[in-house]
């Protein structure tokens, strides 16, 4: 059997190794591309004082998972017109908090001392992962938009200012009388001004880009309308007793007075009751407090100095869950505030009643004597003024609303900041893995080639090799001849035949083993003589056949002489050995024979 020659097998199967490795790399690349994931991530920070205690800026419990809330995600879906559902996106979002090492160390130290310490992370990494059906930039854009929407949501919900409804537009309705319309506009302006006045100190000076003026400018414009424009409408209405339906208007004001009186009585009696409760409560509380103080003083006679009104701790402003701000107002303060409130309401109602009475008195004298034409002109004048003011208020409201939205966004960004850009990483490095796949498959295929090659050696040796000469045997020869018989032989194709004619004598004289050795040596001699491309066969019956491609008659002659010479040399090396042989060849071109059987016969005849 042939020796185990590693490189021979690899060389033999090199094309398979290359082809299969490259195919494996391509297949891996294709499959891995379909399994690729993109993970976008960014760090956000809750950058306000209460964040470390797990509270929102307005003191509510901070729920970081709100970044996954439907409102935030739906905003992203609307922005990009995505076909995904809220849940599709939500399930791919994850959050991870980070507490600094210093905080952890402090916490451990304090807990060791038996002290309570809790710290909430204020820095979070937000991740959004998508599969291979989405692109890298998709993951990046969605996460970026998600964070933007969350900042806006956070700003609106916990940091910023809500806007008030626009009540100015309702005056277009025909159900209101002139005076009522003017009242609605006045109330709207008053509520907007009050809303703007009671905001944070940076609210009015804020200059939103969208409005191109400060919120203070908008406030001034509202004030101007209330002080300079609206009073004209009132003056015109009241001076001319203008009304769309006088009876209805008077009935409305009479009703207001009656309701006011009922309310006044209610607030008056409520205030009186409240005062009574307050006084009783105070009296009883004081007596309890005195007895408690005296007993506690008696119990602390040894250490009177320790008695103090200073509390040892500050009561938490929040309930146990930390979600709600607890009202710590004392009962007495609550009662006294209610008492004051009832009295103020009663007093305001009295003033309003006077005003309603004055309106009734004015209108009681009936409509001012105007001609029909003047009446129509007056109606037109009042209506147009109201419409103009309403339009001005509408426009102002839109600017205010935009401005407040921008203010909210900026305040939101102030409190909730991005600490990193949105970075996208691939789930796997496909190119690297593809190269590795080529290498691994290369090794695997090489191993397979070696195993198969070796197995081929076994098969070759068992079925197709002559065990004496180690050359292909008769079966191989038959196979080769059959194969070649199907086609015409090429030019200069030579069949050379060598027959050892006295091998029986050699066996008899030196033993069979020696005879086999002779056959083997001649086989080796022929192997060395012919190139690898030559089909060299031991056909049994001490006959060697060589089918040589590209070998003309002269070259065959020369080769034949060479072989003879070498066998003669073998004889010369051992005097007692005389190998007798016959050698001959047939060549296609010189013999004009292009069929393998005929060529073989011709060669046979020549030996």
């Amino acid at each position, binding site marked *: 059997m042939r020796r185990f020659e590693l490189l021979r097998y690899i060389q033999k199967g090199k094309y398979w190794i290359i082809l299969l490795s490259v195919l494996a790399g391509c297949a891996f690349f294709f499959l891995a591309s379909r399994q690729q994931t993109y993970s976008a991530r960014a760090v956000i920070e809750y950058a306000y004082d209460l964040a470390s205690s797990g509270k929102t800026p307005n003191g509510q419990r901070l729920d970081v998972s709100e970044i996954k809330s439907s409102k935030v995600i739906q905003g992203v879906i609307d*922005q990009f017109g995505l076909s995904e559902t809220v849940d599709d996106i939500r399930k791919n979002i994850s959050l991870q908090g980070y507490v600094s090492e210093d905080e952890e160390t402090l916490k451990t130290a304090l807990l060791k001392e038996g002290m309570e310490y809790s710290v909430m992370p204020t820095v979070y990494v937000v991740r959004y992962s998508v599969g291979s059906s989405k692109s890298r930039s998709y993951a990046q854009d969605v996460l970026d938009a998600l964070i933007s929407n969350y900042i806006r949501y956070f700003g609106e919900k916990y940091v910023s200012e809500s806007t008030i409804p626009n009540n100015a537009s309702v005056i277009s309705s025909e159900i209101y009388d002139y005076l009522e319309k003017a009242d609605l506009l006045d109330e709207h302006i008053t509520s907007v001004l009050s809303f703007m006045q009671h905001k944070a100190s940076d609210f009015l000076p804020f*200059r939103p880009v969208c409005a191109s003026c400060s919120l203070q400018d908008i406030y*001034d414009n509202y004030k101007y309308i209330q002080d300079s424009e609206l009073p004209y409408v009132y003056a015109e209405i009241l001076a001319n007793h203008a009304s769309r339906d006088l009876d209805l208007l008077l009935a409305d004001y009479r009703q207001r007075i009656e309701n006011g009186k009922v309310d006044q009585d209610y607030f008056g009696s409520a205030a009186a009751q409240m005062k009574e409760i307050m006084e009783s409560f105070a009296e009883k509380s004081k007596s309890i407090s005195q007895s408690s103080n005296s007993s506690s003083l008696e119990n602390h006679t040894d250490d009177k100095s320790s008695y103090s009104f200073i*509390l040892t701790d500050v009561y938490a402003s929040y309930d146990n869950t930390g979600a709600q701000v607890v009202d710590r107002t004392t009962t007495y*303060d609550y009662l006294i*505030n209610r008492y004051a409130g009832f009295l103020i309401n009663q*007093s305001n109602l009295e003033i309003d009643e006077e005003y309603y009475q004055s309106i009734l008195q004015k209108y009681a004298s009936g409509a001012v004597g105007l001609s029909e034409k003047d009446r129509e002109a007056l109606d037109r004048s009042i209506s147009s003024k109201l419409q103009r003011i309403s339009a001005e208020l509408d426009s102002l409201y839109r600017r205010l609303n935009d401005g407040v939205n921008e203010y909210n966004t900026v305040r*939101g*960004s102030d409190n909730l900041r991005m*600490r990193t850009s949105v970075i996208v990483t691939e789930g796997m490095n496909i190119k690297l893995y593809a190269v590795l796949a080529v290498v691994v498959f290369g090794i695997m295929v090489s191993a397979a080639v070696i195993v198969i090659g070796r197995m081929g050696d076994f098969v070759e040796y068992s079925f197709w090799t002559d065990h004496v000469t180690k050359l292909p045997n008769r079966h191989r020869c038959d196979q080769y001849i059959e194969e070649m018989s199907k086609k015409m032989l090429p030019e200069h194709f030579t069949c050379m035949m060598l027959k050892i004619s006295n091998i029986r004598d050699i066996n008899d004289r030196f033993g069979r083993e020696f005879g086999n050795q002779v056959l083997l040596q001649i086989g080796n001699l022929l192997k060395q003589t012919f190139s690898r491309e030559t089909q060299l066969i031991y056909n049994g019956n001490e006959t060697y056949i060589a089918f040589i491609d590209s070998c003309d008659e002269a070259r065959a002659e020369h080769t034949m002489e060479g072989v003879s010479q070498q066998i003669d040399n073998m004889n010369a090396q051992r005097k007692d050995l005389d190998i007798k042989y016959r050698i001959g060849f047939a060549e296609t071109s010189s013999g004009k024979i292009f069929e393998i059987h005929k060529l073989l016969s011709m060669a046979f005849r020549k030996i």
Partner: protein
Amino acid sequence: MKTNNPDRKIYSSIFSELISLGQYVWKHALLLLLAVALCAAATAGYFFRKSETTASMSLTLNYEEAVLGLAPNGEKIDMYVLHGNEVMGRALELAGIAEMTPEELAQCVSVSIKGASGFSLGDTTSYAIMTSYNITVRQNDSLREARISASTMLSLIRRAFHEYFAEKYIDKGVVIELTHPAYDELEYMERWELINMRANQLRSYLSSRSTAAPSFISRATGESFASLRQKMDNLIAVHLADCRAFLLEHGIAKERQTYISKLDYLNDALSRNRDKRKASYEIRMMVIDQYDGEMISTVLIPTENSNRKFYMSKTETGIDYLAVDANYDAVTVSTFQKQIDTNANILSHMRSKTANSAAEIEKANTLLQNVSDSLDEMLRLTQLTAEDYISSEANDYLLWHASRKSLKTQIGGNQFLALCGGYAALALFAAYSFKRRRKRG
């Protein structure tokens, strides 16, 4: 020494093969080089043509807030809009392409963060917000049909984003409407009030700008915000005050009776509000008097005041809130009273006259017109100065840098070199195969 090692035989045969291949290659070097060069030229041509269909540009956000991920106005900047529908829509509009949707155009545009590297959650020093982006446009069939090259489209996208950015994030200067929808119908005093309000709005804008940019002097106007504010102060203190004095002194009115009715109504309304507040104030004062001091004790807290001096504070109780509310009521009463008194003063001047002479009216008109013109001029100067300031700031907010393609990039860079290596290897393989075939016959 002779050896029968088969591997060594193979090595020597490979070596001899290589030697003979080398000889063969050397013999046909010119032909092989020519073949490789031809392939390389074809590849370079392909890449060159391909590079013509793509254009890239880098964008740097060049302002202070950018490193915090914010826009100049302080809100979070959304960079995904760079290839969002709004910017794409604007770019298509600028290109005059109606057949393409913004979504289709967005397919040709890719945006990547420049220099983005990973970060570790525990390592805060690795946190970074990148401010540079790469934008690449690839010409697709739609753009080709519209005869818009990738570089043209990229410059239109750049313009569209610039517009969007300026609209959404950059202060547009001062917008104060000096006109009123019914200015001519307004009374003289109300016109004055309107002008006065606008003047104060303008002054407020100039004050905030002069604080933000104290050293800025406009090239267009030669004015600084501080100098303009000084002029504005003069206008308010002198021109506007003179004008008001004249209008009041002469009781200038357009429709006297209507104006008087309006002021009467306004004072009635103000009086009602004042009375409510006054009553509220008195009730609270009464309740403070009634407050039983023995019901609650307070704790004194040593602290510091705003002047960093020791200050003895105390816990607040209901009485504190009552006092604060009473104070607010008192202040509001005073404010209402001031307005009522002002109106009463105007009323007395209006009532002191029955009509104005033509000369008085003309002078009033002239004075108001002069003040209005002065305010117009101030607004114009302010706008010019503000525009100058904003453009000097905002022009540098977005730095665009068109990446000039080197020849190496244009012909495919490393990809080209790798392919050339491949061609050379193929040529050697072909030579080897050819040589072997020739050897066989």
